[in-house]
Structure formats: structure tokens, C-alpha cells
């Protein structure tokens, strides 16, 4: 599995760290315990196309949003996702 980094070109996946599904968004401070529980623990665990976050730690150190098929490992698109790994609160 090679990921085509938009800044560095195609690189093998060992250069990247995986954060996981890009969909969960950190809830706001007043969202309540159930929302935090869902954000931290529950996953769609998609079988098929999934948007996910990878960090190019072995290269340009950019956060990337990768659309990948979890059944075939086919990578459909790679886009910069600056700041995606920071624990920012959803506005």
C-alpha cells in the first residue's frame, strides 16, 4: 500500500502514522457525556470507502485526509488536511 502524498509523491505506508476514521469530531465543552462517549469510543468501522487521517511523520509531517477502501486497500484520493490531528473542539 503506497500513499501518494501531495507534497512528497508516492511513499510506502510505513512512513505514515494512522489516526483513523476522519468522521468523528470532538464535541464542544457543553455537549454532555454521551456525545463524548460516542466521539471517543464508538466507530462506524466502515467496510468499503472511508475517509481517514494519516500523518506523514516520515516525510513532510503533514496531516492528510485519505479516502481508502478498507476491503481492497485501494487508495482513492489523498488531500492535505492541515491541523487535522490537533485536538480542536468543533465550533
Amino acid at each position, binding site marked *: 500500500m503506497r500513499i501518494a502524498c501531495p507534497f512528497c509523491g508516492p511513499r510506502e505506508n510505513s512512513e505514515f502514522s494512522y489516526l483513523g476514521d476522519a468522521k468523528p469530531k470532538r464535541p464542544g465543552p457543553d455537549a454532555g457525556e454521551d456525545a463524548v462517549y460516542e466521539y471517543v469510543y464508538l466507530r462506524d468501522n466502515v*467496510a468499503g470507502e472511508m475517509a481517514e487521517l494519516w500523518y506523514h511523520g516520515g516525510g513532510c509531517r503533514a496531516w492528510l485526509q485519505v479516502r481508502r477502501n478498507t476491503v481492497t486497500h485501494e487508495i482513492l484520493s489523498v488531500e492535505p488536511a492541515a491541523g487535522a490531528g490537533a485536538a480542536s473542539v468543533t465550533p
Partner: protein
Amino acid sequence: MKYSIFSLARAALSGHRNWPRTWRDAEPKPRYDVVIIGGGGHGLATAYHLAADYGITNVAVLEKGWIGSGNAGRNTTIIRSNYLLPGNIGFYELSMKLWERMEQDLNYNTMVSQRGVLNLYHSDAQRDAYARRGNAMRINGIDAELLDAAAVRKMVPFLNFDNARFPIQGGLLQRRGGTARHDAVVWGYAHAADRRGVDIIQNCEVTSFTRDAGGRVTGVETTRGTIGAGKVGMAVAGSSSRVAAMADLRLPIESHVLQAFVSEGLKPLIPGVMTFGAGHFYVSQSDKGGLVFGGDIDGYNSYAQRGNMPVMEDVCEGGMALMPLIGRLRLLRQWGGIMDMSMDGSPIIDRTPVDGLFINAGWCYGGFKATPASGLVFAHLLARNEPHAEATRFRLDRFQRGAMIDEKGQGAQPNLH
């Protein structure tokens, strides 16, 4: 049929050509008291214990492929009970005790071989951690021995003891640990469950649940028709989220791929199971002579049942650091299995919020050794509607309650467990 020295002698007279089937190829009936989804080790063990210990014999095991074609046929066959935390430790020891009597219980040779599991340590801090783990085991009545380097050298003199970065200082040994023949475990449970009246239905994929007006699960739609059920238990680790989604449930689970490897055959070399403490590499030797080994999961969500090259390289580097003598050994086979990675690294065996639906999931990559106890406690839950005494902490809502069983202390990041 019952296997014995007499059945063997009888079959020998006809040149072993007339052995009957080990289990019936059952046709689905319209309704069962309990339907188990998933014909792996856990599902079949559950059906066996329902029939053998709880008197519920009107049971079907539904398998979308052939039995044992998922993770039961893809693991590295290790059995052990060297856990640390309350909740896990008693459960895995229950499992070890069931392994020890499995062949008599099932009337089937599952080749359980208690050849020992040795976890090596490479630093003072790691020795202290293993001493703590060993003490936790012994307090709970489980065998554990902390070995120094000299004792390890006596057992396995060919290891790289003087590795400059990771010298081997000793190991934690559980002598009762070892290996079992994974396919025979599946066939043994199928054999024993079938003899007690359980229907094992292969090539039967569940496509949805049928539910009544109150939302209670009343059965399943399958590729072989509708099957009614008093209760439905799912034992489909790897695909738990997909099956649960049919009942509108989201689980604290991600599916990840774990690879395993077998080398070409060697003369007897490795006496038991060994693990490298400074990386992630575990190895045993099969009865055919091949080294069976593995390491970390690949680390990204996957349902592909195959992994990628960087992990192969990483695993083989771990092997080389531990025992450089394998440097010219060739890999014979390599494969991947899909793991239910739970958010704390421990399993889930519980009722679900959906009436009539029960879940057995989240085995991470520790499912094989748990097979017998998983079957027993899940059967208990299905039969009695309450958790078995050794499985009271494997609740689905433990994440919401903050009652995680996080053996590695990694938090809610499944690819690190």
C-alpha cells in the same frame, strides 16, 4: 460417532475408507431456540456448551463460508493465561483449565501441547513489570516462574543473549501455556456439538435480523431462507460491526488486519512459545517443523484479510534480533486475519440494547486462547440471561461507565492494543 481405540481398529479393518462424517451437513430448520451467527471456534464452542452444560440442544450455528474459515484458521495457535488485570485473569485461567480437559470433553484430538510460554525481558524495568505480572498470576493460582538469563540460556541457548541494545536478562515462564491444533479445535467442537443435536449450517450468510413490533429480534434472514430464533448470539469477531449494524448498533470496535507467518520446516528447534520483549515477535514451532510467528497488527482499518510489506519486515527484524540463526530461513506462507480491535483491548460478552440479541466480540488478537471459556460463558449468558461469574466485567457499556479493562494502558486507540 464416538472416537475410541475400538472405532480406530474397526476402521483399520476396512482400510480407513469408511469413516463416517465428523458432523452432519444440516439443512436449516424454520426455528431454533438459539441461533449462533458465526461458525468459528467461539460460535461452535458456544453451541457445544449450550447443549452439553445448559441442556439447550435446539441450536443452530450459521456460517457464511465453511466452519473455521475465518480467524479460527488464521491464528498462531497459542494458549496461555498470563494476564494481569482482574476481569481478564480469571477468565483466561478458566479457559486454560478447559484446554487441559478439552480432548476428553470433546472426544477429539485437538493436539493440546503444554510446552510452555516464555516472555523474554530485556531491561530492569521490564523485569519488574514481568515480576508484577507473575505475582498477579500466582495470587490467582496460576503458574508463573521468573527466570534469570542463566535459566533462559539453559532452555534456549541459541538466542542472541548479548544483543547490544536488547540483551536478554531473563523471562517470565508459564509452563502450562503452549499450543493447540487450531483446525482440530474447530472440528472437535463441531463434532461434539453435532453429537448433542446442534445443527451446523454452512454457506449460510445472515443478511438481516427479523424483529417484532417491540423491536425484539425474532430470527434472521439468511442466504438459505428465514430462520426463527428464541435468541440470537453473534460470534463473528472481525465482522462484528457489520453484523451489529444490521441491528442498528454501533460498537466500540475497529477491524484491523493481523498477519501471521510460517517458515519452511526445520528439525526440532524451539521448545515452546517464545516472545521477544523489546519489539513484537512471538514464535513457536509446529509439529510439521515450520516456525509459526507473528507480531503487530498493520495498524489501519482493514477487512482485506491480507497485510502489507512494512509489517512483514518489522516482524522479521524482531525475529532476527532475537535469534539470528533464522537469517537464511525462507518464508513458506503468510496470511492475514481481521481482528475486532476493541477500545480497551479486552473482549465484550454481553446482552445488547436490542432484545433477544447477544454479542461476543472484541477479541483483538487474543481470541484463539479464549475459545473454550468464551464458549462456556457465552452459553451461560444465552441460557441464563446473566453473565457467567468469570465474565462479569466484559460488558458492552463498560466504556460509558469508565470501567475499561486496558491490559496495555493504551487508551481508546485500537491500533495500539
